[in-house]
């Protein structure tokens, strides 16, 4: 268990800078999710923690120890790869025990068996990775990390190769594991739902720059700029450019239909069972509202329960 500390961390490949002055403190036992669109630098940041990428500027500390020049194997971190990176020529047992067997750890066998029991892998221990399903492989990859009891867990989009129902299931599982082990965890995903459901705190990255760090609620209710507001929450926030001097942002569930200062036309209605998505046209702009119960037709009047205002030029929040 450990703290993580980033101070002005930068990463550049030649002239291309992929990470700009990242400052972040991760508390012991915290579950941090790095989220952002693809190419935003989140995986690079993760690999910097692992030591698989060298930091070209700033300082990274694990548990107070400066690790800029420490080899990956001496950092005591474990990582679950997107591809799982299971050793194809080893059984599940050997895969999970590999790290400990390298140290000739006396508890290799019991720890592997305990982790396998915890993950429901006990009956698969002597199989090879190629004989496992996607979900099973994912659990082996997690098991391999758990067995080591590292200071930090790193996850690199571990659910992206699973189908939707399995993904939900594993998400809950992950949360449960974390509750049990309380190991400091850094988790990378591009899926904001995963971020919101898993994280103690979320780091939103865009273009190598940290946009905002905060709890899921903070990010959802108090986004610092237009990018965070648009990225977090599903369906995304409506941005109305022409209503005021600032850009007005309204979450679909903050659109109140029936009465109010604005009038819009209903274009499409998506029925989702319990709720519906109403696609509206307000002047020349499109707007989505999320409503429960009866769906209107034709022209409706509407109001905003809550609206955010962003600077037209910089995207900074103005109110």
């Amino acid at each position, binding site marked *: 268990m450990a703290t993580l500390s980033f101070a002005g961390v930068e990463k550049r490949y030649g002239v291309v800078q992929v990470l700009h002055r990242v400052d972040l403190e991760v508390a012991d036992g915290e579950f941090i999710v790095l989220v952002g669109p693809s190419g935003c630098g989140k995986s690079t940041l993760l690999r910097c923690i*692992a*030591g*698989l990428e060298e930091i070209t500027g700033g300082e990274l500390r694990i548990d107070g120890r400066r690790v800029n020049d420490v*080899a*990956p*194997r001496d*950092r005591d*971190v*474990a*990582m679950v*790869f997107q*591809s*799982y*990176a*299971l*050793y*194809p*020529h080893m059984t599940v047992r050997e895969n999970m025990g*590999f*790290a400990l067997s*390298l*140290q000739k750890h006396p508890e290799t066998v019991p720890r592997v068996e305990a982790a396998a029991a915890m993950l429901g892998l006990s009956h698969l221990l002597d199989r090879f*990775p*190629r004989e496992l399903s996607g979900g099973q*492989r994912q659990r082996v990859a997690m098991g*391999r990390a758990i067995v*080591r009891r590292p200071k930090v867990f790193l996850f690199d989009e571990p659910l992206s190769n699973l189908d939707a129902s399995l993904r939900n299931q594993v998400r809950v599982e992950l949360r449960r594991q974390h509750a049990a082990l309380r190991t400091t965890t850094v988790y990378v995903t591009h899926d904001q739902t995963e971020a919101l459901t898993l994280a103690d705190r979320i780091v939103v990255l865009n273009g190598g720059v940290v946009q905002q760090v905060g709890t899921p609620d903070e990010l959802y209710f108090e986004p610092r700029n237009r990018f965070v507001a648009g990225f977090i929450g599903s369906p995304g926030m409506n941005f109305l450019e022409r209503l005021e001097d600032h850009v007005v942002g309204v979450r679909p569930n903050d659109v109140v239909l029936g009465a109010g200062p604005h009038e819009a036309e209903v274009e499409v209605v998506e029925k989702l069972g319990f709720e519906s998505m109403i696609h509206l046209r307000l002047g020349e702009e499109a707007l989505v509202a999320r409503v429960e119960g009866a769906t209107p037709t034709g022209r409706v009047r509407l109001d905003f329960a809550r609206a955010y205002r962003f600077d037209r030029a910089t995207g900074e929040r103005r109110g």
Partner: protein
Amino acid sequence: MRSPGLARVVVTHAALTALTVATIFPVLWVVKMALTPSSTFSMSVNPFPTEVSLENFSAVVGTHDATGSWLFGRQLFNSLLVSGITAAMGVTLACTAGYALSRWNFPGRDRMMAAFLLTQMFPGVVMAIPLYLLLDALGLLDSMAGLILVYSTTTVPFATWNLKGYFDTIPKDLEEAAMLDGASRWTTFTRIILPLARPAIAVTALFAFMTAWNEFILAATLLGDERAYTLPVVLNGYVGEFSAEWGNFAAGAILVSLPVTALFFILQRQLVEGLTAGGVKG
């Protein structure tokens, strides 16, 4: 996949059969010469022996030297020793070099790759005498050690090249996982990479083995004693300047080819996978 039409099946099998017959025809000839009890190179269309005897084989296998020790056995042992060590050394050198060339983009890497390939373009004709001088200077003349050194070095360029190609297909994150698991570079190489590259290593070793197993000019020049000769040197002696013992030659040829052919059949699957980097499937 739909099942193919009857015509396609028939044509495919016919084509395969015809080409296979054409392929083994000359080999049948060697067998015929080996089994026919005369020393002549007899030519006819029929590739099957009309009379069969193992005379040639016993003549080849039964050679003894002046002191009565069993020459063939000794030479077979020499061949196995030289080829085996050549394969082991060549592959060892090539594995580490191929891995470094595959994984690390160090300064001069591309030039080094090019240099390995360039050596394949050296015509061998001019190299025998300088090699002789060099081994003489190193004091390795007339010894198997010298011959093994030369053989394993000549196998290194192709071996490195082939192994590098295969290493390229092994996903990088396996090594990263191993590194995070606490493995050093060397441990990662020996515990993760080498086991995964087994098909390529087997094929490369087979190639190196064959190089040494079939070579006779350098062996005859660099070895000083009949008891140190490898089998191809002896085999080539059967077809001399003035007379040729074709029967013995063919029998010897079969004996020489058998181990390699057997290795080919055993390693068939690896051969297919290891030559072209089929890729490691998780």
